[in-house]
C-alpha cells in the first residue's frame, strides 16, 4: 500500500464517519459506530497494522494522517455523544404537570385534637380561660364536692374506674371546676378540656373519651346568659347561623336548674331530628358553698361537652371506635389545617 492510496482511503473513511455519525440518534447506535470506526476490526486499525510495510518518511507521514483522522472521528463521536446526552436530559426536563410530586411532607392531626382546638378557640374568644386538672382524681373532687354523696343514685350514672390505691380515673372534667374554685375567687370563667374515663364499652361508648367543661361564676349570672353562650358556641362551631337549638330540663347533681341541649339535624332519610349534644345548668348552690363561694352573692353556670360527639357530628363519623384504631386511612382523611 502506498502513502497516497492510504491518504485517499483515509479521506473516504472520514467522509463515511461524518455521514454515519450525523445520522445516529441514540447512544447505543453511537457505540456501534465507535466500534465500527475505531474498534479492533475497524478499517483504521487495519491501516495501522499495514504501516509496518512502509519506509521511514512515508511511515511518519502516514502515521500522522492516520492519527489525525482518528482524532477527528473521536471528536465527532464525543460531540455526538454530548448532544445525544443533552437531548435525553432535555426529555427528562420536559416537565409533566400531571406527574405526582415527590414524597409529601404533610402528616395529619388527630380529628379529636382538631375538634378540641376548634372548640377551645371559640371559647377563648368568648373570654374563657383554659385550665387543666389531673386525670387521676380523688373521690372528693370527682363526686363529693360536686354534690354527689356516696349514697346518691346519680353515682350509678358514672361507672367509675378505681385504682388500687382508692384513687379513681375522673369520670368528667367537672372535677377541674372544683379545683379551680378552690384556688380562685370569682369572677371565674374557665374551660377545662381533657380525657375522662367511664366503665362502658359498646358502639356508642368507649372507656376513655374527651370532654370540655365550662364554668362561669360571677354576680348576676343567669340561665338566660347560659343559653346565650351555648347558642353562640354551637352556631360558631357548626358554622351554621340558622342552627336550631333547644334546651330541655334534665338532672345533674351539680347543677340546678339543669338542661340538656339538642340540635336539629337531618338524618340520612332527610328527616329532621333532635340530637342531644351537651349538658349544662346553673351551678348548684351546694357546689358553690363547698368551694367557699357565697351562693347568696354569686351564681354561675356550667356546661360539659363530649368532644367525640361533636367530632362525629361535624365530620360525619358514625362509629366511635374509629377514633382509637388509628388507621391511616382514617387519620389521613383529616389533613386539612
Amino acid at each position, binding site marked *: 500500500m502506498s502513502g497516497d492510496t492510504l491518504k485517499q482511503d483515509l479521506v473516504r473513511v472520514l467522509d463515511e464517519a461524518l455521514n454515519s455519525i450525523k445520522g445516529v440518534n441514540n447512544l447505543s447506535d453511537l457505540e456501534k459506530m465507535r466500534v465500527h470506526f475505531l474498534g479492533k476490526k475497524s478499517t483504521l486499525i487495519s491501516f495501522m497494522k499495514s504501516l509496518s510495510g512502509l519506509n521511514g518518511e512515508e511511515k511518519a507521514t502516514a502515521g500522522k494522517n492516520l492519527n489525525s483522522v482518528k482524532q477527528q472521528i473521536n471528536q465527532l463521536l464525543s460531540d455526538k455523544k454530548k448532544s445525544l446526552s443533552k437531548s435525553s436530559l432535555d426529555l427528562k426536563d420536559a416537565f409533566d404537570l400531571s406527574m405526582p410530586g*415527590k414524597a*409529601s*411532607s404533610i402528616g395529619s*392531626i388527630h380529628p379529636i*385534637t382538631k375538634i378540641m382546638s376548634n372548640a377551645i378557640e371559640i371559647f377563648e374568644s368568648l373570654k374563657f380561660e383554659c385550665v387543666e386538672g389531673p386525670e*387521676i382524681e380523688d373521690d372528693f373532687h370527682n363526686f363529693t364536692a360536686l354534690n354527689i354523696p356516696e349514697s346518691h343514685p346519680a353515682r350509678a350514672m358514672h361507672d367509675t374506674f378505681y385504682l*388500687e390505691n382508692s384513687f379513681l380515673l375522673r369520670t368528667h372534667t367537672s372535677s377541674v371546676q372544683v379545683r379551680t374554685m378552690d384556688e380562685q375567687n370569682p369572677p371565674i370563667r374557665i374551660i377545662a378540656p381533657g380525657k375522662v374515663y367511664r366503665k362502658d364499652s359498646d358502639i356508642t361508648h368507649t372507656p376513655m373519651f374527651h370532654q370540655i367543661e365550662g364554668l362561669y361564676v360571677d354576680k348576676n*349570672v343567669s340561665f338566660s346568659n347560659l343559653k346565650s353562650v351555648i347558642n353562640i358556641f354551637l352556631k360558631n362551631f357548626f358554622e351554621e347561623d340558622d342552627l336550631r337549638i333547644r334546651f330541655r330540663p334534665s338532672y345533674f347533681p351539680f347543677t340546678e*336548674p339543669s338542661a340538656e341541649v339538642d340540635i336539629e339535624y337531618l338524618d340520612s332519610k332527610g328527616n329532621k331530628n333532635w340530637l342531644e349534644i351537651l349538658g349544662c345548668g346553673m351551678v348548684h348552690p351546694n357546689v358553690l358553698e363547698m368551694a367557699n363561694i357565697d351562693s347568696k352573692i354569686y351564681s354561675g353556670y356550667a356546661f360539659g361537652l363530649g368532644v367525640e360527639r361533636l367530632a362525629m357530628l361535624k365530620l360525619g363519623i358514625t362509629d366511635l371506635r374509629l377514633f382509637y384504631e388509628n388507621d391511616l386511612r382514617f387519620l389521613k382523611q383529616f389533613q386539612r389545617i
Partner: protein
Amino acid sequence: MKVTRSWLENYIEITNTTDELCHDLTMAGLEVDDISKIENDYLIDIDLTPNRSDCLSAKGISRELNSINAQYKKKPKVESNIPNSTCENRGLKFNIVEDNVCPRYGYMYLENVSSACSAPDYINKRLKDIGITLIHPIVDILNYIMIDIGQPMHAYDADKINGEITIRQSKDKEIMSALDGNKYKLNSGNIVVSDSAQIMSLAGIIGAEEISVSNNTKNILVESAFFTPNAMANKARILKLQTESSHRFERGVDYNLPREALVFLSQIIEENKICDFSNINFIDNEDFLPKNKEVKINYDNIRNSIGIDISDDEIINILLSAGCKFDEKSNTAMNPSYRYDLSIHADYVEEVARLYGYDNIPVTSEKINIEPSKKYTPFEITNKIRQYFYNNSYSECINYSFVNDDLLENSNWKSEEFKNHNKISNYMSLEQNKLRSNLVSSLIRNIEYNNNMNSENSYRFFEISTVFSHNAEQVLSCVVNGDKHEEQWSSKSPKFDKYDMTTIVEDISKLFGLNKSDLRYVIKDVKSNDKNYIYMTLSVDNLIRKITQNIKEHHVNYTKLPYIRRDLSFVIDESIEYQSILKIIEETNVHSLKKTLLFDLYIGKNIPDKKKSLGIGFIFQDEGKTLTHEEADGFIEQILGQLKEQFKIELRK
C-alpha cells in the same frame, strides 16, 4: 318507665296527638326515648332522671302533664269507699327493729286464694302492653298497682311464715335465695324482712324464693311499706340486683302511698270477687317519716337567676300547679309528699324555670370586657409541636390510657424497667388492666395494626399524652418504621435512623428558643415481632417548664465582613462523644469562631478498628476587621493544639 297512652287517659284528658304529648313530656324533662304503636294504642318509653321518682307511675306522669299544661285536664276521681273486710287478720306479730329504715309498714291478709282466680282483663292487658310478664293473679295486681300509682308491694305465702316477722339488719354472710333464682350472700349492711326461720325478703328489693306466692298458695300476706330513700340508696346496686321495687324506693316513694295502695288492692279484689281480704293494718313511727319542707320564696332571686320577667303571682301559680302548698303571709312554699326533689330554694328556681318552659327563657348576651383573649400556654406549646410533626409528614394518634401486661409495657417512658404500674382494680378486660407508663408501645401497636391493613412502606406516628408511673407526666413520643419517605418515583428513600430523631429534638428546642441540653428525652430503637422501630420520647412537662422560664426572643448583632472557612479531618477513638469535642473547641475561646459544623462522620474501610473519622468545618469571622488567611491558620492551629492535648487524634489528608 313504660306506659301506654290509654293508661294515662285513665287519669287525664288527652286531645292532642301522641307525638305532641311526647314532645310536651320531653320539653318538661321527662325525655321520651321511644314511641311505638300497639293496636289502637301507643307505648311510650320515658327515660326518667333520678330526681323524678314521682313520675314512676301512670298517675304521676298524668299529674305531671297536668301541671305542664292545664289542657291535660284531670278526670274526676270516682269516689269509692274502703270495702268491708271479708276475713280476719291473723294474729301475726311484727317487730320493726330498723324503724328509721321502715317507718311505715302496712299489711293485709288475703284468704282463700284459688289458683283458678284471675285478675281482671284490663289489668292483664295493660301489664302485657308495657311488657310485664303475668305471674300470678295477686302478684299481677300488685304489679299493676305499682305501675299505676307507684307503690311497690310484696306478696308472701302466709302459710309458710313461722313466728314473729322482723325487719332488721342482715347478719354477716347470711344467704338468701331470691325470686330471680340467684343466691345472694349478704353482709351486715342489708335490711331484711324475716320470720323466725328464714329471710322472707330483702326489704324493698326482692322476695325470697321459698316463701313466694305460687299456684298452690291459699293465703297471702301483702306488704305495703315505706322504706326511706337514704336507707335504700346503693343497696341494690351493691348486690347488682336492681328491681322495679328497689328502683322506686331508692329514689323515693310517697309515704302516703302504702295506704292508698292497700285500699286500691281491696277495691280491686272486692270488685272482681277474687278472694277474701282482711282490713288494713299499719305500724308507723312518725318520727322517721320524711317531713315536708317549707322554703321561703325569693322572687327576685328566681327572676334574676333564670333571667326572666315574671310576676310574683305567676311564680306562685306555677308552684301551685306543681302541687306545692303556698302560704302567702310568709311567702313559703311546701313540697307535696311525692316531690322529694323540692327541698331547697334552688329546687324551686328549677321548678319555675321548667314549668315556665326552657324554650321561653330569653337569650341574654353577657357583657364582656374588651381585652385580648388569653391563650393557654401548655396547649399553645403542644399545638406548635403537633404542627411541626404535621409539617414533617407525621400522623397523630390517640390511644387509650389502658394497657396490659405486654412485655413492652414493662418500661416507663425513659425505657427503664418498670413494674409499678397503676393498676385498675375494677378493670373491664385484662387487656386494659393498667395505666400506661409510655406511649411507645401504643404507637408500635398502631403501626403493627396498620401494617396488617395498609400497604405503606413508611410509618411516622406521634402522640402527646399523659403517662402514669410514680407521677403522671405529659410526654411526646414519635415512632418510625421503614423508609423515611412514602414510596415515590424520584429517588430511592433512605431508611430511618436514630439521627432523624436527633433532628426532631433539635428542631423542637429551636422552636422554643432552647438548647437540646435543656430537654429531657430519649432516643432508642426496639424490635417487636421482627420489625425494627426507632423512637424518641420527650418530657412535655419539662419542656413547658423550660419555656416559661425562658427569656424573650431578642436580636444579636452580626458582622458584615467576609468569613474564612477551614476544615479539619481527623481520626479519633470511636467512644469519644461529639459533645466533648465541641466542649474543647469552645474552651479554646477563639472569639472569631462563629460556627462549627460537622460535615462528615466515617467509620469503616481505611479507618482503624474502634476509631472514627470526623470532618469538622470552622467558620471564622471578625466584627472589627477582615481576617487574613494567616490569622485563620493561627486559629485552626490553636484549636488543633487543644484537641491534640485532650485526645489522641490523627489528622487525615
